[in-house]
């Protein structure tokens, strides 16, 4: 029975990742079109192409809502990617070239394993904690996975066997290492604030007040983590590693087909991951302001889960909007921001939080 | 439970591989990595023995080994980069002169 519960958990978590990533993909395509005042992905709409006059309003509404359009677009993307030529550049190790996208995705997916996705509940006599793995190191595990994520891009850049992808890989790894420090420090300040490493405990501590209001400088940690999140996903104004005007497409220049799609997926999964971390750490997780859900009820867990997903989606969309709004940084600006602004602020913030904790 | 001697034997094997690597490889970075291998072998036996004797001191020692390894990596790689600048190579056999 334990195994079954575990399998169900795996299934749920996997679907959460895929769902979030897929929705993000669609939002990105449609949202960017909206921002840039164009139609966007318009070749694969809903299956509601009709000449029947009476059905036309329905089709219009359905297409406008895009519910089916989402699925349709994604399906078409996948099919397109599968049927594309799987290109491997000459003079490089094919194994490494294949390994790179998965190395990029793996840490992101594994990170989801420790995120609690809903409050505890009881069903059929089993007490279920909707979290795939309960690890003693807790949040530190996120940091560990974040630090491994570099290998994917570095390897991708290297196996591209051309200068643009190598430069992209170098830029990406330098950027990720640089911003990891600020991320680590701001997460440590959160750990100090809650006094625990367990994400579950952290969310529980926010049942009455959201974490961002629990400490006078928590908003600093949030802002740092948010910026770092965008930098770690190499998106938004931080997309130097793949800046198309300079490096073609950076480290995945030589990737096509399914491998490219995996990178793509990993990118959106990472957006969702950072949104989830921010929501869990600062915005109450599944807690609804001024509403107390009963403990242990399966329906409460379901509601909690939906609330959590809504919040995560909010931050995903926020990130996408920022990505399509702001121009790209220059490389020195990027490094200055990471080392000379975020890192010192994060350090001072950590000291303040620690001091507040002690006195 | 796995006996501690298993871990120790594994550690010895890993250490030996590290030594052999240091002796036979000529790329400075690989030599550096082989040293890391040896350090990790020792770390492993530290943790295993910490478990054997039932206190955490061994794990603390590992922590400090990691600190030293990090410092070593920073300085060592900087040396290798400047070596590369002056000798246009990272072969240990090309770094046989005191003047840069």
């Amino acid at each position, binding site marked *: 029975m334990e195994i079954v519960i575990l399998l169900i958990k795996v299934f749920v978590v996997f679907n959460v990742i895929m769902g979030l990533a897929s929705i993000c993909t669609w939002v990105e395509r449609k949202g960017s079109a909206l921002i840039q005042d164009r139609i966007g992905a318009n070749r694969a709409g809903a299956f509601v192409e009709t000449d029947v006059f009476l059905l036309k309003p329905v089709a219009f509404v359905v297409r406008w809502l895009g519910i089916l359009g989402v699925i349709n677009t994604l399906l078409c993307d996948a099919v397109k990617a599968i049927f594309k030529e799987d290109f491997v550049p000459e003079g490089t190790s094919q194994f490494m070239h294949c390994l790179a996208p998965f190395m990029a995705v793996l840490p992101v997916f594994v990170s989801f394993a420790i995120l609690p996705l809903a409050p505890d509940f009881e069903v059929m006599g089993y007490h279920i904690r909707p979290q795939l793995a309960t690890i003693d190191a807790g949040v530190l595990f996120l940091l560990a996975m974040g630090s491994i994520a570099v290998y994917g891009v570095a390897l991708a850049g290297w196996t591209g066997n051309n200068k643009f992808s190598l430069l992209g890989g170098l830029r990406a790894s330098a950027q990720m290492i640089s911003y990891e420090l600020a991320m680590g420090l701001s997460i440590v300040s959160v750990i100090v604030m809650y006094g625990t490493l367990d994400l579950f405990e952290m969310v529980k501590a926010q049942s009455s007040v959201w974490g961002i209001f629990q400490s006078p400088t928590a908003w600093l940690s949030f802002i740092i983590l948010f910026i770092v999140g965008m930098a770690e996903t190499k998106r938004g104004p931080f997309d130097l590693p793949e800046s198309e005007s300079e490096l073609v497409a950076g480290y995945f220049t030589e990737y096509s087909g399914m491998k490219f799609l995996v990178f793509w997926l990993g990118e959106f999964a990472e957006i969702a991951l950072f949104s989830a971390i921010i929501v869990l750490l600062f915005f109450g997780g599944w807690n609804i302001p001024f509403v107390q859900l009963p403990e242990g009820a399966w329906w409460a867990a379901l509601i909690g889960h939906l609330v959590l997903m809504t919040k995560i989606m909010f931050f995903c969309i926020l990130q996408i909007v920022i990505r399509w709004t702001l121009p790209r940084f220059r490389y020195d600006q990027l490094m200055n921001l990471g080392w000379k602004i975020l890192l010192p602020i994060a350090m001072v913030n950590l000291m303040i939080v620690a001091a507040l904790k002690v006195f | 439970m796995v006996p501690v001697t298993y871990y120790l034997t594994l550690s010895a094997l890993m250490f030996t591989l590290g030594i052999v690597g*240091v002796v036979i490889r*000529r790329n*400075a970075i690989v*030599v550096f990595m082989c040293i890391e291998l040896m350090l990790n072998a020792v770390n492993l036996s530290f943790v295993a023995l910490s478990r054997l004797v039932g206190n955490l001191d061994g794990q603390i020692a590992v922590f400090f080994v990691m600190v030293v390894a990090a410092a070593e990596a920073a300085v060592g790689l900087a040396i290798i980069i400047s070596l590369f600048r002056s000798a246009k190579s990272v072969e*240990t056999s090309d*770094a046989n*002169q005191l003047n840069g």
Partner: protein
Amino acid sequence: MEQNGVTALGYIPLFPLIGSVLAFIIGRSKRDAAGWIATLASAMAFAVVVALVMAMPEEAEYYYRAFTWFSVGGFTLDFAFRFDHLTAVMCLVVTGIGSLIHLYSVAYMAEDEGRHRFFAYLNLFMFSMLLLVLGANLLVLFVGWEGVGLCSYLLIGFWFKNLSYAGAGRKAFVVNRIGDAGFLFGMFMLYRQFDTLDFAELAQAISVNASPELLPLYFVVALCLFVGATGKSAQIPLFVWLPDAMAGPTPVSALIHAATMVTAGVYMMARLNFLFDLAPQAQAIVAIVAVFTAMVAALTALTQNDIKKVLAYSTVSQLGFMFMAAGAGVYWVAVFHLVTHAFFKACLFLGAGSVIHGCHHEQDMRHMGGLWSKMPITAATYGISTLAIAGIYPLSGYFSKHAILAALEGGHNPALEGLLELLVPMASVTAFLTAFYMTRSFAMTFLGSYRGHAHPHESPLRMTAPLIVLAGLALVGGLWLGGTLPHYLAPVLGSPAEHGHESIIEGLMHSWIGIAGIGVGLLCYTSLSQIPATIYRVIGPLSTLSLNKFYFDELYAAVVVKPLEAIARVLFRVVDQGMIDGAVNGTAAVVDVSGEVARSTQTGQVRHYAFFMFVAALLMLFLFVFAGRV
């Protein structure tokens, strides 16, 4: 006697020490601040001394142990200070006159580039001198003794860019080393006999051990210590450095080479009076040496043309007077003359400095003259001091010098029996000569018409103020101290014989020697200036002798310096170049050869080194596992 631990004692030397350091550090950037810092430091030390003297009850004695200096085996030496009436007098002189001279120097050295160095050294000197007089045991005294020697060396060679000045500093240093050797021998013998160097304990031990078999020891010790004193206080045969010491800035000559440091020997004898009293033969030698020194120096001073050289020989001569008193066993008179001499000689030196300053660094009296009208204050104070040193009643010099002659005459030292008939007239002649040559210097400098080419002017108030104060002290110091000093010093130096109060007429009568000297001097160097020339012609060779300082320097060069140089040359060639260098070079050659051999293992290949390490580790493991059986 009560023994109080008084922390204030520590402050007396501490102020000049701090002042020295501060003057040097702050003076590097702010040259003018150095002088005021140093002056303030020594004035503060003076204030502490005055406060202590005022507060000190009759018959009391302060004792302060700063820290235990070292402790070897059973021998523990404290860095301790002792403050009794003798020390009080010395401290007052050192800090009081020192402060005045500091003030004077601020103006005198105002133009000098290295004045921060000057004031640092000057304060360091004050510190050492205070250690010397405050020290509660011989070793602390010796530290001060060496310290003042060092400062004297530094200050004589202050303008070290002038090679002959630097040489003068070196000469002073080397000559003093000879004296110090004697001092050290004396000290060692004392320690060997009594296991202590503390003055109080020594006095105790010696008073208990006055047995006859120890008398030779006391004689030798006293003689050794006196050798030290001849070095520091410029007596025959070690007086040659003092005239050369005039190379230093004039305030230095006033402070170190007239008022304080050179009197250290006298102070030391007074401090160890209990020892010298048990060695009458040594005392007799002291007295004889002193008389001869005074005589020779006075004769030399007759023909010198450099104003500072005259004063230098005069100092040697006056020191001779002090040692006469000490040799006669009447220590309070020695101290008395020390004090009055400090007043008028400091005044004279500062006056000479003022003249030199006014005449744009002219020191030759032949290029002076008629300065009376141009620098009236300097002339007046110089004149008063001249009268004082000549021993005219009621100026200070009269009392002390008269007391010295009386003491010599009335001495009960059996070893001097029969010699007194020679010594006393000699001392009287010397007193006459003193008056004569001082009058000569006064007349050549201030009277007549100006013979130089500069435009002399009076010195600023900061220089004349100390002159006025010192002249005032020279004027009344004798009257004031003549009555009080013997009683004040009685607890330390023993009660003096009471002698009646003398009237003004008697005083004037007794100062006939001085009056005669002044009279003859005035006659010779104002109205009848052909007389000296005639005399010189008549006694030609003798005057040459005097002019060339009795050829002491040349004598020492032939007897001491030349043989030493020869020995040094031999040692250099044979021992240093041959043996020591040979050993060093040989060692280097061995290292060189073995290095060539060892070099072959150093390929410069990191991998090889790693391999060697691996092999060595294997070897160690092998030993550990199979041979060690640990």
